[in-house]
């Protein structure tokens, strides 16, 4: 039986029982992303407005005339979740200041898939983060354009077979490495950046709560296991999310004011085969290809550790007048 870190047997009773993302939505069986949304909303609470990009979660939950959302929700297009979120945040700010809506905090949260975040949505995200809106952006990364039929994105890991990076006779799967958007967010001086996974629900929900408290931009990158796109068993969604962390392929960390901290410590990383072999999208990989990926995963993990041990919090690095002497 797998162990969930820091798991208190009675902790489930402490989370909000209300479902803000109600059953009746049309996600696939075992959808990791639907679970992640469900848990995220519990951590956010009712005083939230969601700006959603086009994607799996938008489509499965908002079939007119019904909606699975119990939160105010808006969707415009694929690439502008962060832009719409910026507008919602600015609108709410102005209306509250002018006394036209009740005087209490309402958090704007923009959500998008990996496509709507790091590919087509990159511009809007960068702009929103640079402008410093009081907005949380959550990327639900299922590592491909799943909603349109499992096409590759810049979030697809090396070697994965997708419908636009198939495992053919000459080219086998994705030929580029996964884009690291969390790092891009840190470079935008976003005060709170984190990676998360619904397989570690309390870690995820704590991160959402922390991000919600930030008066300014925050970013969470959530790995969403997709049994349909990853060709994995629907019951293994949580297990795969755990393996992604335990093999170091998706380490769970947070960056607060530039200070890196790994939130789910793994004493000894498992070999990535344990994770890859359970997914049909990697079944074409040869041992040589797997070795290459393993080398890179280890290197990336070391890079992260380097940052954890080496980098200071930005407030520790504040300007010192004596620096020029």
């Amino acid at each position: 039986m797998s162990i969930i870190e820091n798991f208190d047997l009675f902790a489930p009773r402490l989370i909000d029982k209300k479902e803000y993302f109600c059953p009746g939505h049309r996600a696939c069986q075992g959808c990791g992303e639907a679970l992640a949304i469900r848990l995220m909303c519990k951590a956010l609470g009712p005083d939230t407005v969601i700006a959603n990009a086009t994607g799996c979660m938008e489509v499965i939950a908002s079939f007119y005339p019904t909606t699975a959302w119990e939160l105010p929700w808006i969707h415009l297009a694929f690439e502008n979740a962060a832009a719409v979120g910026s507008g919602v945040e600015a609108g709410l700010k102005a209306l509250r200041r002018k006394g036209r809506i009740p005087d209490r905090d309402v958090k704007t949260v923009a959500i998008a898939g990996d496509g709507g975040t790091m590919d087509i949505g990159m511009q809007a995200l960068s702009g929103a983060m640079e402008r410093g809106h009081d907005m949380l952006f959550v990327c639900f990364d299922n590592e491909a354009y799943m909603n349109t039929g499992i096409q590759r994105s810049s979030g697809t890991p090396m070697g994965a077979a997708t419908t636009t990076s198939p495992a053919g006779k000459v080219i086998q799967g994705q030929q580029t490495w996964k884009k690291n958007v969390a790092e891009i967010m840190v470079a935008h001086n976003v005060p709170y950046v984190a990676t998360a996974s619904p397989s570690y629900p309390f870690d995820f929900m704590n991160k959402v709560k922390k991000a919600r408290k930030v008066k300014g931009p925050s970013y969470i990158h959530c790995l969403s296991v997709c049994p349909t796109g990853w060709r994995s068993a629907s019951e293994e969604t949580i297990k795969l999310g755990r393996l992604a962390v335990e093999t170091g392929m998706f380490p769970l960390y947070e960056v607060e004011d530039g200070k890196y901290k790994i939130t789910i410590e793994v004493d000894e990383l498992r070999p990535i085969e344990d994770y890859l072999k359970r997914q049909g999208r990697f079944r074409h990989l040869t041992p040589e290809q797997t070795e290459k990926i393993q080398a890179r995963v280890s290197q990336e993990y070391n890079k992260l550790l380097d940052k954890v041990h080496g980098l200071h919090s930005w407030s520790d690095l504040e300007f010192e007048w004596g620096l020029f002497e």
Partner: protein
Amino acid sequence: MAKQVGMEVGIAAAEAVGLCNIDMAAVYPITPQSHIAEHLSDIVADGRIDAEFVTVESEHTSISCVSGASATGARVYTATSSQGLMYMHEILPIVSAMRLPVVMANANRAISGPINIWNDHSDIMPQRDAGWIVFFAENGQEVVDMTIQSFKIAEDDDVMLPICLNMDGFQLTHTVELIEFPDQKEVNKFLPVRKPFATLHPDHPISMGTLGMPEIYAESRKSQDEALINSKKTIFKVWDEWEKMFGRRYKPVETYLAEDAEILLLTMGSMGETAEIAIDELRKKGMRVGLVKLRLWRPFPFEELKAVVKKAKSLIVTDRAVSFGGPGGPVFAEVKSALYNEKERPLVYNSIIGLGGRDVTVKDFMKLIEDAAKAGKKGIIKDYEYYGVRG
């Protein structure tokens, strides 16, 4: 008491917005809209209005941003031109389908390519089917008046549609004109605080921008079309109110000496004023000519146009945009099609003029009309022709 000032029209547009108690604006600069954006940011930075001013990173974001804010119940404004409007193109139909009352100024400028920053109407024509209410202003006074009117029309519960106000780039936006500004008290009386139909707020969670299956998509589109057609009622009502309060009368189709005209010229935008002088000159020569100026582009003023042109023998429609390989310029195609089934209608000619900022003078208008008169006598109608193109 209203005050009259000489002011650059782009700056006047921003001043007009400043009178309207907007809650939020998002702009991205593009020549020749930039003065509107710049002056609006001055007004906000000086604290003259209390609004969130978001300097976004692209026009696609500016339209998305104001839509998000409009959905929360805020009064919003944006402005763009040419390539910026083309970049917004993806989102424009969504804003009208979602019934968000965004007000946008478009400083008409030619679209690429080749890249050209000067005035014509090729930027607004590709947005014809986006479902927005579209106005054309002829001079600085109209820009100011219609900016203020637009907020009232857009936010009306019977309308709830976004509005694009066109003003010729450089020709209008960068010229200094004499403008009478209503004072703040009068505008406050005319334009109360926005009372939105539905908003994004946790006190009453709703979902906006849902998925429309084939079962209802067509019904949604028809409902939107009906809303746009119906908005004419509110537009006329607001124009009546404006006349009562400020004395200036607005009509969807304006005319100049058209009642007894045999030959009519149709223009949109600031060229109308130059054309009026040409009409005067030709009248002196004894020609029975007149001018029709289209102010309301969408919803298209079918009845008003038909009534104005039916007695004329010829109607020359000037277009400032090209519909490549199509049946003529966009305005010509629409006017001709509007008149097709009428028993009483003029012969319709099309002249494509003033592309990419090329000036159209009084003499040019006179020549256009005289040439059409000659062709009319011989019964010649060409599909469409470019005026003044060398070669």
